[in-house]
């Protein structure tokens, strides 16, 4: 796992079609050249519908994400961004459609996937320290019988160093600022040394410096051939710091290079009434991050729906 050269995702990155700039421009309607895209994708979804209870959250989503991509998933509240990540993570079984993650059904390659939930779903009073949380990233690699050893502690040290949280290792997580909390959870993902990052709102509600630093780290990971998929509400961040963007509103409205988020018509189709376009091209968004429906509902159901 720790050898990049052995990582199949790394080799796939070398494929000539992998470079985003060579792909055609906005694949509006998400028409993917099925066979080719699937063969070269780290994450591949075909006509996927999913939801909670009888309430749909995703409809007919098809998308292929190549190894080494830094992808932002944007869209209004309730667009299904978190649901999309949960389907990819194997936490939610789709109603219909086919999913492949790292060349296998979702959940099969779980040890090579790091999923970071939204900050709202975490119990910040939980009696664990920064170091404890980052070490959890190593647990799935250890199996039930082994205790964390020197090798694991080194991974934790490095991850804490990367997010510049080494000095806070022994603090309880509730004592941290919002930005520090996001740093810690990214460190947990880094410590697992995954091939695929699935990050739910990793840069929401944090200061600009932290956002820049976390994006620098994700950029490096993508350059190493790791696939990074992050939901975000921050369109400026998506346009400036991500390689590619998928615009979601239950369906994939558009998927392509990050420059496409600057397209007014696509934004209008993605965000609908949340959007105000002013003459001269300025776009105002009224889409503060909040939950219209209690976030708990999706979480409560995941046990039933978790893939084996």
């Amino acid at each position, binding site marked *: 796992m720790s050898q990049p050269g052995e990582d199949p995702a790394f080799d796939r990155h070398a494929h000539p079609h992998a470079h985003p700039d060579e792909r055609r421009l906005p694949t509006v309607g998400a028409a993917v050249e099925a066979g080719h895209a699937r063969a070269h994708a780290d994450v591949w979804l075909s006509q996927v519908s999913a939801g909670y209870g009888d309430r749909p959250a995703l409809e007919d989503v098809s998308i292929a994400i190549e190894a080494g991509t830094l992808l932002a998933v944007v869209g209004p509240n309730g667009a299904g961004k978190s649901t999309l990540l949960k389907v990819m993570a194997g936490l939610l079984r789709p109603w219909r459609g086919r999913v492949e993650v790292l060349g296998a059904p979702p959940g099969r390659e779980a040890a090579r996937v790091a999923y970071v939930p939204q900050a709202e779903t975490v119990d910040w009073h939980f009696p664990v*320290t920064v170091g404890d949380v980052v070490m959890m990233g190593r647990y799935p690699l250890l199996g039930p019988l082994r205790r964390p050893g020197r090798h694991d502690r080194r991974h934790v040290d490095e991850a804490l160093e990367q997010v510049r949280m080494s000095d806070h290792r022994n603090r309880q997580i509730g004592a941290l600022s919002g930005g520090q909390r996001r740093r810690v959870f990214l460190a947990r993902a880094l410590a697992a040394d995954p091939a695929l990052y699935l990050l739910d709102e990793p840069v929401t509600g944090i200061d600009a410096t932290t956002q820049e630093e976390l994006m620098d780290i994700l950029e490096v990971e993508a350059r190493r051939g790791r696939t990074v998929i992050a939901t975000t509400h921050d369109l400026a961040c998506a346009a400036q710091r991500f390689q590619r963007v998928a615009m979601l509103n239950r369906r994939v409205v558009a998927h392509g290079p990050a420059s496409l988020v600057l397209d007014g018509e696509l934004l209008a189709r993605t965000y609908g009434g949340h959007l105000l376009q002013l003459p001269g091209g300025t776009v105002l968004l009224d889409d503060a991050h909040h939950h219209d429906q209690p976030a708990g509902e999706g979480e409560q159901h995941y046990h039933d729906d978790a893939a084996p």
Partner: protein
Amino acid sequence: MTDWLLEPLQFAFFQRALVAAVLAGVTCALVGSYVVLKGLAFIGDAIAHAAFPGVVAAFVVGAPYVIGGGLAAFFSAIAIGWVSRRGRLRVDTAIGVVFVGAFALGILMFSRIEGFVGELFGFLLGNVLAISAETLVSLLLLGGLVIAIVLLLWKELLYATFDPLGAAAAGLPVSKLDYLFLGLIAVTIVVSLQAVGIILVVAMLVTPAATAQLLTVRFSRLVPGATAIGAATAVGGLYLSYWLDAPSGATIVLLQTAVFLAVLLLNPRTGLFARRNASDAASA
């Protein structure tokens, strides 16, 4: 003072009771550390009450109460999970339905038994001084099993408790761990029934862990802390029970409650003399 400690120890029944009480204190505190963090205190109470019909049934047919209570507790734990999933009900609703139903069944069966029922009252209120050597051996086996499983899976249980989504995405079998944990609660309750009784057993699960949670913000200290409190209060409560001639369940639980209150009031972080900026002090 020494007499006070040594006199009861000359009796074999007291020695057995001491072992049983410490076993219950340790097992409950260990499992209870996760119960408190998962917010499952109500489930612990429910499973304990639901064990009652099993204990009565075992009494009627002359089987060991460990088996009857254990089966009833185990199946009620499974039933709670099943009812909440099938009915798409909130878990606490499912618990309310299952636990009161099972306890009512126990009361009905109990009312049909003719003659002396003092021994059954012991299961409701705890009477560890009456424990037999055979029962103690089976409790040691069951308690040892629970302790071994928790020590083996502590980190998986911790991850699945702290961040079930992240743990499941990383490949941990979170729903299986949830069911396993309900089973562990059930066995833990059976182990503790004779020491503190059905009605009070939830305190054994919750109070030592809650006390430890006041004292530390580190999981690696919470579990040993809770275990030490559980064991010490079990010993202290048993002596109180002997000298006051009171039910052991009541004295153990009251002692735990007293320790909790003392810590709550005197703790530098939460207490009456709490400093400001306490979260920093606690992480030191």
